[in-house]
């Protein structure tokens, strides 16, 4: 049954229904409602997890690392400065192959300090080994958490579910929250990998130091597993549809919106896709052949699916709510990497919405007309 819920409340409810054993988090705008809700559910006796109030994001991440290493399902949530503060632990969690799930309420990174939405925080840690999924709507974000737990636990890789801060966390939308009974049909109880967790009946040492003759192969296996997660995401999203009767994009990796005959394709992640879809609809009415390729899985990156989707386009405008300073939008670099020898389209990087600057339909229309031109330089769309 659908309820009208604030994004954060939806996340708190779905996390509770996924029945993690240990949650630890530190409040930071705009993730605060998620952690407040979880604490409240616990206080009202409506939750079974152990909740540890941490004194910083670094501590929260360390606590979930320790709990996950002891072989139980764990969860945390953060944003921006908090994500950067726990960056050291994020790399540690991925390197130790612990299936922690984290919600990142995407927010701009200081300095200058900004509490409003952009995606700089999560994309900055894209090399950490964490899988990164981006939701467009609160429903999609809810569903991605359920898929996220199953994905993490089957591959022993941590998963970050991203939702745009304020735009999704503080907005009321109709959401269907699967019950814990329904979720159990999809997500079994967590069974940690033998010899990879702390168990007094099977003692072993985690986090040993790897001399030069050992380190590379371990990292290579991590790399291969992140890459191969694509197959797992496709199969998990198919299974998701069977049980919950909802699609997560086309296949959990991407969603193509009116791209079949599109000359111009926009590429983006997150809630901005909602605005883009509106613009595409109105442009299509005027006869313009435009489409949207929405990226849901940023890590792993669905190389094949993206190349197929963009194969017939003449112009590709990649819209980033973040930037690799001095270079261009990060998503744009990813698309250009795939284009090498494979795509004929002109690919241009557009930066929008930094620090919470509202992304209007007019801005999207500007991008569509700009990408049709000759200029291929990076463009900041400020107004």
């Amino acid at each position: 049954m659908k309820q009208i819920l604030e994004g954060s409340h939806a996340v708190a409810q779905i996390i509770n229904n996924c029945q993690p054993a240990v949650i630890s988090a530190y409040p930071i705008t705009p993730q605060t409602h998620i952690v407040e809700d979880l604490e409240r559910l616990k206080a009202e006796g409506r939750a079974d997890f152990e909740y540890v109030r941490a004194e910083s994001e670094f501590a929260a991440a360390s606590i979930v690392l320790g709990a996950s290493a002891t072989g139980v399902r764990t969860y945390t949530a953060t944003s921006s400065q908090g994500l950067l503060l726990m960056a050291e632990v994020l790399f540690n969690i991925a390197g130790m192959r612990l299936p922690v799930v984290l919600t990142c309420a995407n927010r701009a990174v200081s300095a200058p300090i900004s509490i409003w939405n952009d995606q700089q925080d999560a994309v900055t840690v894209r090399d950490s080994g964490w899988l990164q999924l981006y939701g467009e709507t609160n429903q999609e974000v809810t569903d991605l958490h359920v898929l996220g737990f199953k994905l993490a636990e089957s591959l022993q890789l941590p998963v970050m579910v991203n939702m745009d801060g304020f735009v999704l966390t503080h907005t009321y939308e109709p959401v269907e929250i699967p019950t814990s009974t329904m979720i159990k049909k999809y997500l079994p109880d967590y069974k940690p990998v033998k010899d990879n967790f702390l168990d007094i009946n099977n003692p072993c040492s985690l986090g040993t130091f790897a001399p030069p003759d050992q380190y590379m192969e371990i990292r290579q296996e991590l790399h291969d597993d992140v890459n191969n997660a694509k197959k797992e995401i496709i199969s998990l999203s198919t299974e998701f549809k069977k049980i919950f009767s909802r699609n997560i994009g086309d296949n959990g990796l991407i969603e193509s919106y009116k791209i079949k005959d599109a000359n111009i394709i926009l590429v983006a992640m997150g809630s901005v896709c909602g605005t883009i879809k509106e613009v595409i609809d109105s442009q299509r009415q005027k006869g313009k052949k435009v489409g949207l390729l929405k990226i849901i899985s940023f890590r792993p990156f669905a190389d094949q699916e993206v190349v197929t989707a963009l194969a017939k386009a003449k112009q590709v405008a990649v819209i980033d709510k973040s930037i690799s300073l001095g270079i261009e939008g990060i998503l744009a670099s990813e698309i250009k990497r795939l284009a090498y020898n494979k795509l004929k389209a002109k690919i241009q990087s557009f930066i929008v919405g930094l620090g919470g600057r509202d992304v209007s339909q007019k801005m999207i229309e500007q991008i569509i007309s700009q990408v049709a031109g000759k200029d291929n330089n990076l463009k900041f769309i400020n107004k």
Partner: protein
Amino acid sequence: MKKFKYILTAKPGTTSENKTGGWRAFRPEVDHEVCIGCDMCNKVCPEGICFPTGQKNSKGRVFYDRDLEYCKGCGLCAKECPVKAIKMIKDFK
């Protein structure tokens, strides 16, 4: 369920395959007759390789000895033995 190609964890107690005895320049020699089995050498050894042998000397005391495969020759046992039953002798060429 993920099966790891490269195991990330270490099995318990496996440093015992690293015989550190090759580090030392001096080796402890225990005079079993003088040893009173007080356990002091066991308490002070950083490697934890001094142990009661289970055998008794002529005074009826269970004497101690050490596992020379690991002894690094620090000399703590010789220094701290209350009855000076241990001597450090040269052990290098």
